[in-house]
């Protein structure tokens, strides 16, 4: 599938950059024919994915880098890839369960939100290697789909 637009950004793994990342992706997604509610949901999934890199992937080490890639293809699919080179996930099926968290102070809803507000979620991870979360959401309008 051909790309209509693509952007990649890398930034320090500090909590200030969660709002930065969601606002960047939100502004990128605004090119799509979508509602403010869509944008809010996209910001939510970005917030969850980037928070996870900071808290779990890098265990709050502020000197690491997080990478976010966003693209829109010619079929109006928005793809968001969030990547850290941190700790990785030991038990991925377990981690993706709703309400499961390795941190007792957290809700365990990050992956649930990411899954619920996108059409497709893929997680690539290996202990000690880092984690890549790939989220896709289609904005193809019905008329376009029939054309």
């Amino acid at each position, binding site marked *: 599938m051909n790309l209509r637009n693509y952007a990649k950004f890398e930034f320090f793994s500090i909590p200030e950059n969660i709002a930065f990342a969601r606002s960047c992706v939100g502004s990128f997604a605004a090119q799509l024919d979508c509602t403010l509610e869509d944008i809010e949901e996209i910001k939510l999934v970005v917030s969850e994915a980037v928070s996870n890199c900071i808290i779990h992937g890098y265990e709050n080490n502020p000197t690491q880098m997080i990478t976010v890639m966003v693209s829109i293809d010619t079929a109006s699919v928005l793809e968001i890839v969030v990547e850290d080179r941190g700790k990785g996930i030991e038990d991925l099926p377990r981690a993706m369960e709703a309400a499961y968290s390795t941190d007792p*102070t957290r809700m365990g*809803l990050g992956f649930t939100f990411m899954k619920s507000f996108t059409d497709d979620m893929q997680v690539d991870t290996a202990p000690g290697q880092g984690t890549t979360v790939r989220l896709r959401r289609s904005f193809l309008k019905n008329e376009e789909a029939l054309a």
Partner: protein
Amino acid sequence: MSLEFKKIRATLIVRVAGEMDMLIADKMRTEIDKRIDDKTIRNLVLNLERVPFIDSSGLGVVIGRYKRITAKQGRMFIVGARPQVEKILFFSGVNRLVPMYKNEQEVINI
């Protein structure tokens, strides 16, 4: 993010302004707990009128305060949640634990 506190008898009203994510979670937790640990406080009203965004880290702050308030036999309410914040509160079931109202007046009237 900014917090405004108001005490009405045994009830603490917290008016939050700003996006509720991980960046502000710690500060919010500390600031609120400092006040609800006060023996004269039993109930908590969280005013979210000026909160345009909440994610699971923000929800964690809400649930955490709920546990603390119920542990001391108090009651907690959320008022003024905007549609996008309300959606997340419903989606996560927080509304089944913490009753939600339009504004502070509605809670005071009950």
